[in-house]
């Protein structure tokens, strides 16, 4: 596990690290869920199931456009490496909570995987809604301990000598995985390339699609 505290400096205005925070409305929703569950009026699993029907359909596809631009434009790619927050903001995508972004690039040597907790550490502005599994405690703990087996469950098999680097999001710093550009995509424009970038490929639990599998 790497130490993300070494490479960011956004905690100067906090007395100590409050990674977990609920806005009034986030807390209100939790409150209603608690009341309704205690009264037996809702079943949390049923709520998750309803949310799940939307998770892949809704939310912006902004992240895919960021990745496609990085694949096509070496200058943008460098900028994204150096200052992802600014590079992403230049495309008009900014988070409501002013979170900082860092882009981590997959290479043949290193595959990146992002994890978080049940808190709000997910770059909504770029990736849309988080998948329900991403919020599961099991995903997080297993991804840290045995990322290769977690990837296998997502049908991702990497060469044995590819290192897997696990990044732990915080409320202040969130990660976007830039998957490797698939082969056979030399002639594609950014729009076509963006179709190859799945949500999972930007979390690291998937790879970019081959052109023949484009949605």
């Amino acid at each position, binding site marked *: 596990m790497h130490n993300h505290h070494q490479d960011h400096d956004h905690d100067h205005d906090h007395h100590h690290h409050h990674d977990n925070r609920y806005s009034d409305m986030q807390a209100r929703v939790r409150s209603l869920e608690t009341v309704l569950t205690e009264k037996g009026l809702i079943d949390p699993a049923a709520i998750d199931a309803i949310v799940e029907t939307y998770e892949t359909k809704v*939310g912006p596809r902004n992240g895919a456009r960021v990745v496609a631009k990085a694949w096509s434009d070496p200058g943008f790619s460098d900028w994204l490496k150096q200052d992802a927050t600014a590079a992403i903001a230049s495309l008009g995508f900014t988070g409501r909570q002013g979170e900082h972004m860092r882009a981590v690039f997959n290479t043949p040597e290193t595959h990146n995987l992002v994890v978080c907790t049940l808190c709000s550490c997910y770059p909504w502005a770029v990736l849309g809604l988080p998948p329900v599994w991403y919020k599961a405690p099991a995903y997080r703990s297993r991804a840290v301990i045995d990322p290769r087996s977690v990837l296998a469950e997502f049908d991702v098999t990497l060469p044995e000598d590819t290192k897997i680097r696990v990044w732990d999001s915080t409320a202040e710093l969130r990660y976007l995985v830039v998957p490797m550009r698939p082969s056979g995509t030399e002639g594609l424009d950014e729009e076509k390339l963006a179709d190859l970038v799945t949500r999972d490929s930007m979390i690291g639990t998937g790879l970019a699609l081959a052109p023949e599998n484009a949605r």
Partner: protein
Amino acid sequence: MRSQLAQSPGLPRSAEGDPVFPEPWTAEAFAMTVHLHEKGVFSWSEWAEALSAEVHKPGRAEDGSDYFDCWVEALSGLLVIKGVTDADAIFGLQKSWQRAAEATPHGAPIALANDPLSRPI
């Protein structure tokens, strides 16, 4: 999802007509409402009336950016009217969840029991 709730007035929608959720809690609020409606806790017209009243309150954002705040307020109000709970209980738990979140170290799931002033259940 073919829920009637997807026809709520003002709900942001994608080009395909699906609801669009700016943040996860908005989807959770939507899902809870759908579930309660399906269980018959309130009728469609009761919901539409409650939501509409919130959206048209003075001081609401003209660009609709607080649409889901209205949604959650409407749902809270409706649950009080229906006698499911009362406003003090909702607000008390809201504060409790906020304290619990702050008291939970990064990497651990946020649980209500982590509230240092945890209420007796």
